[in-house]
């Protein structure tokens, strides 16, 4: 397991006044929570196996952050499919969303961006 890349972490936090605005982000945050739990437990047991940087699970986190649950899952699935012993490997980052309108917390959860 490798750490989340810098692009998958932020400094924002969820404010009480933004809870309603954060509701549409619930699916992707639920998925990110599940992924983080997986990364903290099962992924550590396997050690480093991924042929890319960031690792498949870290890629999945950034993909869901940037593109949401549906498209992010598809991207992550495609990544796992190309992470096999005959793959070239190397660096393979998620292409960021062209108009990303949210902020990230230190753990990688997505919260609404504040005006200030």
């Amino acid at each position, binding site marked *: 397991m490798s750490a989340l890349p810098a692009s998958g972490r932020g400094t924002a936090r969820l404010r009480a006044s933004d809870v309603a605005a954060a509701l549409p982000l619930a699916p992707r945050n639920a998925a990110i929570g599940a992924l983080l739990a997986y990364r903290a437990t099962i992924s550590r047991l396997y050690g480093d*196996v991924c*042929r890319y*940087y960031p690792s*498949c699970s870290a890629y999945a986190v950034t993909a869901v952050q940037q593109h949401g649950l549906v498209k992010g899952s598809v991207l992550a699935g495609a990544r796992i499919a190309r992470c096999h012993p005959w793959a070239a*490997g190397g660096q393979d980052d998620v292409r960021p969303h062209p108009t990303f309108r949210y902020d990230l917390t230190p753990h990688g959860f997505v919260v609404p961006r504040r005006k200030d």
Partner: protein
Amino acid sequence: MDFLGTILWPLKWVIELILVAWHWLFTAVGMPAAGGLTWMLSILGVVVVVRAALIPLFVKQIKSQRAMMELAPEIKKIQDRYRGKRDQLSREAMSRETMDLYKKHGSSPLSGCLPILVQMPVFFSLYYTLSDVKRHADANLGGVGALTPELTRQFNDAKLFELAPFHETLVNAWQTQPEGWVATVVTLLVLVVLMIASQFFTQLQIISKNLSPEAKTGQAYQMQRIMLYILPFAFVFSGVFFPLGVVLYWFFSNLWTMAQQFFVIREMPTPGSEAAKAREERLARRGKAINSKGKVVSMAEYEEEQRRLIEETEKRKAQQPKRQQPMGKQRAKKQGQRPNGTTPGAPQGPDAADGAPSGSK
């Protein structure tokens, strides 16, 4: 049929075919068609076919580990550059550089994420096939392919060691308490324990013998040690809900992994690990050693290579220009006035050295 069952239809078809093919083979040699042993061996047959199909993945992995030995100096260079830098950004940069190096070299010690997941659909297909057996047998139905209604009935009637039906789960046997349920529960419990023990033992072997000293220092290693003891509890839960046939499949599969891992630890251990040291000692007793390319050679050849390597380094050292000590102006002047005061690295000959001081005056 639910969503996952529908997606897995092709795999279920294949699994059924393999299962029935083995069953056909065993009945052809005279074993009873509804015998527990026949169906147990058929499940073992499925494990053998699936794992044998995965051998190319395993071989590829071994080959790239060999290639890693040649890459070791360059990896060390990267590690040295980031020595003592523990912040996340440095770690990230180091990982990126290492991955680029693997890519450039075309080999990697990492096998990728797919091999881990590849067995999962097979496992689920078997799960669905087995858990459908009872329902299908009651309705006089077959499976999705080769498993005919008759074979389904035979499979449903078969009992492992004539004690426990293959479709029975621990939780179901406990709740419904059919006739002979105590024997079923005991058989299942023994199998679950065996399955967990084999998994634990394999993981313990890897962690205690086949990790390099560098890998043993990190935080990841500590976590691996903790997980080693926590994970068996997770398997207790799955062991409770899985049909006997699936537990059996898992157990056989673990045995295969264990044998494979034993072979790796003995014959191609991680360089620098305890297993590698043990192998070197074994080879030394037979008068053999491992050369710089990772091949086994005789002691004489090994010593010959070592001598050549030492000679080469010495030669390279001798050829390298000596570093010139920096010197003060006064000293430089004094040395320049001496007739043979030139150092090997200095570009000018003795004549120029004689002339230089006079020019600077």
